[in-house]
C-alpha cells in the first residue's frame, strides 16, 4: 500500500528527486552542536501553540462578560480542557525561553555576521511578535492578573510627549482597559499575529537555506573566511546531509522540549498561574503584588529604577534598536567571540545585568 502511494507520487511529482535535492544534498557542517537545533524547536513550539490555541477557541468566549467563566469552564468542566490550556500557557513561556536561547547562541557563535544580517533582523522581529502574542494572549482570560498587567503595559506609551496618550488610547480602545480592549487583543492574538509570524518564519527559513548554514567558529576547519563580495551558497561537501542527520537531532531536542513541558504541567501546574489569575477582572480594585511575566521583569524593573518615564522608555527602544541592527555595527570579520575579549565581556555583562534585573524585579 505504502509502496504504491510512493510510486504514484514518484511518477507525478518526482518525489525521489525532491527529497534528494531539497533534503539529502542540503549539507550541514559536521561540527554543528545542539544549539543549532533551537531554531527548529522554536518552530515546533509555535506549531504547538497554534494547535492548542485552536482547541481553546472551541470554548473560549471573547467578551468581557463571559471570558473569565469560559476559561474556568475549559479548566474544570470541558473534558481535558485543562490539558490544552496548560499546554498553551506553559508552551508560551517555554517558547519565549527557547527563542531567547536561540538568539544568545546565534550571537555567541557570530552567525549574525555578513552575509546573514537579514536573518538576524528577521529573527529579532519574530521575538518581538512572539512577545506581542504573549501580551495579547495574557488579557484574554480576563482575570485580575490579566486586567492589571495590561493596564500597566498599555500605559507605557504615555511616557512619550504628545503622541503617547493617543497611542495608549488606540491600543486600549479608550482611556481604560475595557471590553473593547479585550476584543482588540483577541483579534490581534488569533487573526493578525499568526500570519505575520508565519510570514517571518518563511523568510527566515528561506534565508537560511539560500545562504547555507553557518558553522561554529571555534575550530580551524570552520567556514572559509573569503570576503563576501558576491552571492555564493555556503555548502559543506564533507558535511552531513540535512536529512536524516540534522532532522533527527532536531527531533531529539523537540522530545526534550515536550519532556520539560509535561514535567511542568504534571508537577508544577500553577507555575505560571498565580493567585490573581483565578480572580475575575475587577476594574475598580487593583490587587497587591501585580507582576508581569518573567520575561518582562528586566525591562519592567529598569522602568521602575529610572526616575524619568520618558528616559526609561527611550533607553529601552534604543537598546532594542541596537541589538536589532547589531550586525551593521559589528562588522569585524572575526567570528570567534573567544578571540574578541571586549565583545565577550560585553556579552557576559549584558547577560548578568538581565539576570540581576529579572531577580530584582521578582523580589521587589
Amino acid at each position: 500500500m505504502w509502496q504504491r502511494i510512493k510510486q504514484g507520487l514518484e511518477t507525478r511529482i518526482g518525489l525521489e528527486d525532491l527529497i534528494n535535492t531539497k533534503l539529502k544534498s542540503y549539507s550541514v557542517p559536521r561540527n554543528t552542536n545542539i544549539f543549532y537545533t533551537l531554531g527548529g524547536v522554536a518552530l515546533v513550539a509555535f506549531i504547538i501553540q497554534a494547535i492548542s490555541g485552536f482547541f481553546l477557541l472551541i470554548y473560549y468566549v471573547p467578551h468581557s462578560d463571559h471570558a473569565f467563566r469560559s476559561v474556568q469552564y475549559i479548566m474544570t468542566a470541558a473534558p481535558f480542557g485543562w490539558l490544552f490550556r496548560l499546554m498553551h500557557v506553559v508552551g508560551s513561556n517555554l517558547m519565549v525561553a527557547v527563542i531567547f536561547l536561540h538568539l544568545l547562541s546565534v550571537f555567541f557563535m557570530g552567525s549574525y555576521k555578513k552575509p546573514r544580517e537579514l536573518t538576524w533582523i528577521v529573527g529579532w522581529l519574530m521575538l518581538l511578535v512572539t512577545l506581542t502574542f504573549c501580551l495579547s494572549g495574557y488579557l484574554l482570560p480576563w482575570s485580575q492578573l490579566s486586567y492589571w498587567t495590561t493596564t500597566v503595559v498599555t500605559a507605557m506609551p504615555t511616557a512619550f510627549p504628545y503622541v503617547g496618550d493617543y497611542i495608549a488610547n488606540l491600543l486600549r480602545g479608550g482611556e481604560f482597559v475595557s471590553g473593547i480592549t479585550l476584543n482588540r487583543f483577541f483579534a490581534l492574538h488569533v487573526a493578525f499575529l499568526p500570519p505575520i509570524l508565519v510570514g517571518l518564519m518563511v523568510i527566515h527559513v528561506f534565508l537560511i537555506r539560500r545562504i547555507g548554514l553557518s558553522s561554529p567558529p571555534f575550530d580551524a576547519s570552520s567556514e572559509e573566511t573569503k570576503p563576501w563580495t558576491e552571492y555564493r551558497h555556503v555548502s559543506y561537501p564533507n558535511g552531513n546531509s540535512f536529512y536524516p542527520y540534522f532532522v533527527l537531532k532536531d527531533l531529539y531536542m523537540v522530545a526534550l522540549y515536550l519532556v520539560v513541558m509535561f514535567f511542568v504541567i504534571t508537577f508544577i501546574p500553577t507555575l505560571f498561574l498565580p493567585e490573581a489569575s483565578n480572580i475575575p477582572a475587577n476594574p475598580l480594585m487593583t490587587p497587591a503584588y501585580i507582576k508581569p511575566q518573567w520575561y518582562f521583569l528586566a525591562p519592567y524593573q529598569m522602568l521602575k529604577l529610572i526616575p524619568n518615564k520618558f528616559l526609561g522608555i527611550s533607553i529601552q527602544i534604543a537598546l532594542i534598536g541596537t541589538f536589532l541592527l547589531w550586525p551593521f555595527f559589528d562588522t569585524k570579520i572575526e567570528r570567534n567571540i573567544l578571540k574578541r575579549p571586549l565583545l565577550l565581556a560585553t556579552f557576559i555583562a549584558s547577560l548578568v545585568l538581565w539576570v540581576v534585573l529579572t531577580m530584582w524585579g521578582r523580589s521587589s
Partner: protein
Amino acid sequence: MKRRKFLKSLLALLGSTTLISFAYPLVRFIAPPSRKAEVKRLSLQKNEIPAGEAREIVLNNTPAIIINRPGKGYIALSRVCTHLGCLVGYNKAKGNLICPCHAGIFNLDGKVLSGPPPKPLTEFPLRVEGETIIIG
C-alpha cells in the same frame, strides 16, 4: 516602449491611489470609539462620610474617591495613579493614598509624597451646599 512606460505609470498611480484612499477609513475605524460618561455629576449627604473616612465613586467613567480630611474638609480625587494607571487606595491609619503597583504614595491633597508617579492625582471640582456635597 513609450506605451509600456505610460501603462506602468498609470498602474502605479491607480495602485497607490487605491491604497491611500483606504488610509483615512482605516485610521477612523481603529480609533477608540467614543464612550458616553454615565455619571457626570454626583451628590451625597455630608453625614455619609464622617471625618477621616472616604468613599469610592465612579465619576465620568473614572474611578474616584471622596475623602473627608480631618480639619481640611472634603476633596474628590481621581484614583487613577499618574504613573501607569493602577488604582490608589485610601490608607486611613497613615492618612495617605497608596498605589499597590509600584508603591507610589500621595498625600490627601493628591500630591506625590514618594515613588515613581510624575504628577499629582487629578482633582475633581467639589462644593458643599448646606448638607449636600456636589461633585463634578
